[in-house]
C-alpha cells in the first residue's frame, strides 16, 4: 500500500518549508502508519471472519449430517 501525498487536513502544517519539511514528516508518517495498521487489522478480521464462517458452517453441517436427523 502506497501513500499518495499529504492528507488535505495537513496542508496548513506544510509552511514555507514545503511538504518534505522535517517538522511535518513525522506526523505524516505516523498518520500513514496508523491508517495502514487499521487497514491491515480490518483485512485480517475480514479474512478470519470469512474463514471462520465457512468453517463453522461446515462443522455444523457435519454435526447435523452425522446426527442422522
Amino acid at each position, binding site marked *: 500500500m502506497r501513500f499518495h501525498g499529504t492528507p488535505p487536513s495537513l496542508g496548513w502544517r506544510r509552511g514555507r518549508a514545503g511538504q518534505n519539511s522535517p517538522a511535518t514528516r513525522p506526523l505524516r508518517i505516523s498518520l500513514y502508519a496508523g*491508517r495502514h495498521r487499521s487497514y491491515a487489522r*480490518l483485512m485480517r478480521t*475480514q479474512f478470519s471472519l470469512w*474463514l471462520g464462517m*465457512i468453517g463453522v458452517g*461446515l462443522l455444523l*453441517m457435519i454435526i*447435523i*449430517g452425522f446426527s*442422522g436427523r
Partner: protein
Amino acid sequence: MRKALRSQMLSITFAVLFLGALVGQSFAGLGVYNENQIAHGSSPAGYWEFVTSSNFVVDVAENWQSEYLQFFLFILATIWLIQRGSPESKMPGDEGVGTDESQLVGRFAKPNSPKWAKVGGWRLKLYSNSLLLVMGTVFLASWWLQSVAGTVVYNADQLDHGQPPVEWIQYVFSADFWDRTLQNWQSEFLAVGSMVALSIYLRQRGSAESKPVGTPHAETSTEGE
C-alpha cells in the same frame, strides 16, 4: 475508521447478503417442508427442528459445493487456459504458473511480501497453492456433506413410501444425488463461461470485472479502474 471500514465494503456487503439469504432460505425451506409434512398427514416441524435437520443441510451443502467447485475450477483453469479479449484471462503467452520473478517469490520477494513467499521450500509450495487448496477443500467437504445429509433425507422418503433404505455408497451412485449435483454444476459452468465470453464485447463502466469501456475487444487482461 469510517474510511478504513469503507475499504472493506465489498466483503462486508456479501457477508450481509449471504446471511440474509441463508435466513430467508431457512424460512422458505421450512414452509415447503411443512407443506409436505401436512400433505403426508405428519405433524409440521418447528423452526429450530428444521434448521438442524438433514433436509436443510442437504440444500445448503449442495449449493456450497457447486459454488466452491466453480471458483476452484476457474482458478485452476485460468493458470493454463486463456481467452483472448476477456478481462478474466491472462495475456496469450502467459499460460502456466509463471517465473519466480513474475510471482515475486524467493529472492525476488519484496520486503513486504508475505513471509512464506520469501522462505522457499514446502512453505512456499503450500502458500503458492493456498487459495486453490482452501477452495478445493471446502468443495470436497460440502459435496461429501451433501451426500451424507442426502442419504438421510432420501431414506426418510424411502421409508415414507414403504421402500427399503439405502447405504451411503448406494446413495452416492443414485439418480437423486447426481440430479441434485448436476443441476447446480450446469448453472455454475454456464455463468462462468458466459462471464468469460460476454466480457470480451460487453462492458460495465467502473466494474473491476470489466475492461474499461473504450478498451478494444481483442485486448486481454486489462481490468477496470
